[in-house]
C-alpha cells in the first residue's frame, strides 16, 4: 500500500502545493539573489553584468569589520541564551510548588509580537527616564543618567541583551523538555549510590541534554545571525555603525541606498556563512552520536 506506483503518485500530488509555493517564494528569489549579486542592479530599470565587482567592493570597504562584529554579536548572544536557558530549564525542572505557573510565565517574550517587546526595551534603555538608568541611579551605581543606545559599546550590548530576552523562552522550554526526557531511574540509581545533586547534574543531566543543547544552539545561531528587527528598531545600526551587523548592512545597502546588486552580494555571503554553520553542526552531531558510548 505504501510504495506501489499509485501510492507514489498520490504522495507526489499531495506534495505539489507546498513544493511549488516554496520554489516560487524561496528558491527562485535565492537564485535571483546570486544572479543579482553579479550585476549593478539598482533603481534604474536597466542593469548589466559586472562580474565579481560587487564582491571586490565589499572586501575593500569596511565590511570585514561588519563580518567580525556580526560574529561577535551572534556568539555573545547565543552563548548567553544557552547559559541563561540552561539555568532556567534546571530551575523550572525542580520539584517545587508553583512550577507550572513559572513555566507559563517564561513564555510571554516569545508569544508577543517581537516589535512590541523591542519597543519596551527601547524605553528601558532611555537615558533620561528609562528604568535601567533610573534604577542604577537610585542604587548609586550611576551618578548621572546614561543613554544606553547612544554609545557604541553600550548599544552593542543593549541589542544583545534584547535579543537574549526574546530568545531565552524557547531555549528554556526546549531544554526543559530535554531534561524531562532523561530517564528518572538514572537519577535514582545515582542517588542510591550517594551521588549529590551537583554531581548528578554534572554527570547525568549535562551529558544527556547535550544533543538537544546542540540542536538548540544551532537553531538559535541561525535565528540570531539573521536577527534584523531588534537592531533595526533600537538603533538602525548606529551609533556610528557600531551595531551594524551583516543583515543590517545588507538592508541599508539594498533598500536604503537602492544598490540591489551590492546588497545581493552581501546576502549571498550571509547564506554562505549559514551553510558553513550547518556543515559544522552536522559534523558535530555525527561525532557526538559516535562518541555516545563512552
Amino acid at each position, binding site marked *: *500500500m505504501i*510504495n506501489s506506483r*499509485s*501510492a*507514489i503518485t*498520490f*504522495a507526489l500530488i*499531495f*506534495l505539489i502545493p*507546498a*513544493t511549488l*509555493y*516554496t520554489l516560487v*517564494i*524561496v528558491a*527562485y*528569489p535565492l537564485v*535571483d*539573489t546570486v544572479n*543579482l549579486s553579479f550585476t549593478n542592479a539598482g533603481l534604474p530599470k536597466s542593469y548589466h553584468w559586472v562580474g565579481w565587482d560587487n564582491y571586490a567592493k565589499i572586501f575593500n570597504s569596511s565590511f570585514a569589520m561588519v563580518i567580525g562584529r556580526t560574529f561577535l554579536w551572534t556568539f555573545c548572544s547565543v552563548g548567553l541564551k544557552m547559559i*541563561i536557558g540552561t539555568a532556567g530549564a534546571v*530551575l*523550572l525542572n525542580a*520539584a*517545587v510548588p508553583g512550577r*507550572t505557573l513559572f*513555566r507559563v*510565565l*517564561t*513564555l*510571554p517574550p516569545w508569544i*508577543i*509580537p517581537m*516589535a*512590541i*517587546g523591542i*519597543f*519596551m526595551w527601547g*524605553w528601558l534603555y532611555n537615558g533620561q*527616564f528609562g528604568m535601567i538608568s*533610573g534604577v542604577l*541611579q537610585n542604587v548609586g551605581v550611576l551618578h548621572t543618567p546614561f543613554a544606553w543606545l547612544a554609545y557604541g559599546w553600550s548599544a552593542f550590548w543593549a541589542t544583545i541583551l534584547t535579543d537574549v530576552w526574546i530568545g*531565552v*523562552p*524557547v531555549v528554556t*522550554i526546549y531544554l526543559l*523538555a*530535554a531534561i*524531562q526526557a532523561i530517564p528518572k531511574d538514572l537519577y*535514582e540509581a545515582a*542517588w542510591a549510590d550517594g551521588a549529590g545533586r551537583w554531581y548528578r547534574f554534572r554527570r547525568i543531566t549535562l551529558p544527556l541534554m547535550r544533543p*538537544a543543547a546542540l540542536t538548540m544552539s544551532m537553531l538559535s545561531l541561525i535565528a540570531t545571525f*539573521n536577527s*534584523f*528587527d531588534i537592531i533595526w528598531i533600537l538603533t538602525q545600526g548606529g551609533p556610528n555603525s557600531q551595531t551594524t551587523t551583516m543583515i543590517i548592512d545588507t*538592508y541599508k545597502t539594498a*533598500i536604503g541606498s537602492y544598490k*540591489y546588486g551590492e546588497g545581493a552580494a552581501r*546576502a549571498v555571503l550571509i*547564506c554562505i556563512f549559514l551553510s558553513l554553520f550547518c556543515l559544522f553542526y552536522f559534523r558535530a552531531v555525527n561525532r557526538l552520536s559516535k562518541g555516545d558510548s563512552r
Partner: protein
Amino acid sequence: MTEITDRLQPAAPLVAAKRVAAEVPMIDRYKWFEKVGIYVGIAVFLFFVLAPFIEGFRVSLRPLDHLFSSPYVFWPDDASINAYFQMWQDVPLLGRYIFNSLFISLVITIVVLLLVVPAAYAFARFEFPGQGVLLGAFLAVNMVSGAVLLIPLYRLMRTLGLLNTYYSMIVPGVAFLIPTGIWLLRAYMMGIPRELDEAAWADGASRFYIFRRVILPLAMPGVMVVGLATFIGAYATQFIFALTFNSKSELMPLAVGLYSFFGKERVVWNELMAASFAGVLPVMIVFFFLQRYLVAGMTAGAIKQ
C-alpha cells in the same frame, strides 16, 4: 510525554493532597536552603523575563509629562488609565492596525495549513525516491530569513503588482512558516497507528477517503497545534515585510503602525505602551487557554532525539 503540562488533579481533595505530600520521593526533597536557592533563582530568572512588561505597564499608567521627570520613581502616585482611551483618538488607525495584524496572521495560518497538511501526510505515510532530500530542502528554508531574500522578493512583488497590498505581507510570510509546520505535523502523523489506514485500505477505501476520513480526524490535535504555532509565529514576526513592501497606512500591521506614536519631537511613550498591551491581548488570551498543547507540540523535537 512531557511533564511540562502537569497540573494538580482538578478534583483532588485534601486527602489526595496529603497523600502527595507524604509520597514526595526522597530524591525530590529539598533542604530549606536548597528551596530558598531555587525560589531565588526562579525569581531572578522570571524578573529578567517579565521586567519589560512590568515597566511597560507602569509607563502606560502615567501621564506623559510626569514620565519625563527625573529622578526615577517606581511607584507612581499619579496613575491614570487615560492613555488607554486617548490613544484611539491620537492614532485613529490604531484599531485598524490591530485588525490588520490579526487578519494577516489568520490568512497566513489558513494558507499554511492548506499547504502543510497534505505535504506532512505524504512525508509521514509514503516512501518515494528523494524523500529525505525533499524534507531536508524544506528544513533548509529555515536557514534563510526574509531579510536575506528581501531584494528579489521586492522585485517579485513589484512584478506581480502586489506591493502595498495585504498579499505583499501574506505571501512571503507563508513561505517561512511552511517548514516548521511540515516538521511538526509529520511527527504527529507518524504517531497515528498504520493499522488504521491499512484496515480501511483492506475494506476498499480510496487513498483520498483514508486521508479525509481516517487520518485527518485523528490528526486534528496536531493540526490545531501547528495552526496555533503558525498563528503566533505570524503574529510575532510581521515586521520586515510590512516595513519594506507596504507603505499604505491603512494596511499596516500593529508592529509597523506603532511608529505613529513616534512624533516629530517626542515619543508618546505612555500611549505607545498602552497600544502595545491592547495589541498583545488577543494573542495572550489565545495562548493562555491553549498553552499546554502548544508547548507539548513545540518541544516534541527535544524528546525524540
